[in-house]
């Protein structure tokens, strides 16, 4: 069974075409990584799914339904959550408010409470700092808060845009462990990453994006491919 199927997607921003016909599929309970150089269009894939960039042609089908033109709240209701780049949180709201607002679309108070205690179990530091304003959080805590906020929406598919960017190696390691853990919890995850090696290691399937097209795809053994070795891991690792 396929959870998300992207077929021949062309997309971009205000007439500028970034993605030039890509195909990606995500199965339930799977981590899919998108790697590639800056400007290849990795983030645009996620933004197309979340209807933030302009899709010019192609289709995006989620659980059998075409979602290309849906509104944000409809996508969230469908179980798709998006954590954007830069660990963006509401700095002037408390940690608890940041989480509760994530569940804005859930009307059932009990479900919200249940999700909140689930997030607090997963990220104990957020529970400790629940009453504090979020602007005082450290980089790693901000990333946890951004993830926690997305989890408050009860997603089945999580879209993560460069979550490790700017984090220390230690925090990156913790983050990737958390992401693997989320898969164990039953989520599907599409992750856009600049850290190609780490991404390939945790992903079930990796797509290499170059110049708006899929240049290569495969499982964990993709790491042995000449192209990945030379261009993305060469020199750095």
């Amino acid at each position, binding site marked *: 069974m396929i959870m998300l199927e992207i077929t021949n997607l062309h997309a971009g921003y205000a007439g500028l075409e970034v993605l030039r016909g890509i195909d990606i599929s995500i199965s339930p309970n799977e981590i899919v990584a998108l790697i590639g150089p800056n400007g290849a269009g990795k983030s645009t894939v996620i933004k197309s799914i979340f209807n933030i960039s302009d899709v010019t042609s192609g289709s995006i089908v989620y659980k059998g339904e075409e979602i290309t033109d849906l509104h944000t709240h409809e996508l969230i209701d469908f179980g798709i959550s998006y954590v954007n780049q830069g660990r*963006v949180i509401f700095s002037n709201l408390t940690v608890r*408010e940041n989480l509760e607002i994530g569940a804005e679309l859930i009307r059932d108070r009990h479900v919200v409470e249940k999700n909140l205690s689930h997030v607090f179990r997963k990220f104990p530091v957020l529970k400790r700092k629940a009453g504090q304003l979020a602007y005082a959080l450290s980089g790693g805590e901000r990333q946890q808060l951004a993830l926690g906020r997305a989890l408050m929406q009860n997603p089945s598919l999580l879209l993560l845009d460069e979550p490790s960017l700017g984090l220390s190696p230690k925090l990156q390691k913790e983050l990737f462990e958390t992401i693997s853990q989320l898969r164990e919890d039953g989520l599907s995850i599409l992750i856009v990453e600049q850290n190609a090696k780490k991404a390939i290691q945790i992903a079930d399937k990796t797509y290499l994006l170059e110049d708006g097209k899929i240049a290569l795809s495969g499982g964990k053994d993709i790491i042995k491919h000449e192209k990945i070795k030379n261009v993305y891991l060469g020199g750095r690792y």
Partner: protein
Amino acid sequence: MAVVAQLIINGLIAGSIYALVAAGFSLIFSTNKFMHFAHGSSVVIAGYLLFTFFSLWHIPFYLSCLLTVVLTGVLGVVLHRFVYLPLEKKNASTVVLLIASIGLLMLFQNLLQIIFSASVKTIGYVQVAQGVSLFGASITPLQIAIILLSFFLLILLYWFMKYTALGRNMRAIADNKELAEIIGIDHIKVASLSFFIGSALAGIAGILIGLEQNVYPTMGTMLIVKGFTGAVIGGIDFVPGSILGSYLLGLIENIGIWFIPSGYKDALSFALLFIFLLFRPQGLFGINKGVRK
């Protein structure tokens, strides 16, 4: 001593009105990120609505007040939906929106002059009353009502912003509109509601000032300048800050005339506005945009 007490009380009365105007202005600014100077029109239109309902049509006073407040709130929503939103959809900059709001302020001022003439209108609900004595100062029952009612409403607004989901969403949009959209908050609906609440507060300010000082077409312009100054002093995108800033402005203006001729009262507030815009544009209590890395 009695004179000082009188000046402080006068400052509190003025500050109460400014705070009501500034709180609404600030609330609308925080969720929309542009200066709604036509907020002054909401104040003056409320004064004329009360005059029409109560003095001309003889509708019972409290019903007239209720109608006035609701209609002023609706006016704010109408301006948002039919003037600002279409401009925003055409990607108008905040400067364009600012100019539109000043245009609306002038339009309403002139419309009021055409309909009601430029002369002062008296609502005449409150008879001229003997003031009661407080620390040697004189204060009328209406003035006591102005201070208490403003205080109560501003506490209520604070509670609403802090403890309700809608208030939280307003603060979230003020903080980061893009993120608010990503998590599914309908920012247009929230912006419209902040126009309703902010304008209704302006309506209450218009009623109070209409009862205290009569109504005339140009009073909206002066009041929005005072409300704006109070908001700048306190921190324009932080509602509690702009409320405190407004009380401060009222007090400084009125205590200032202890030292300088009362004719310079307005000049004093303009001087304060300049000083803050130059040296502390974020205001005394403005939102801290600092981010810990």
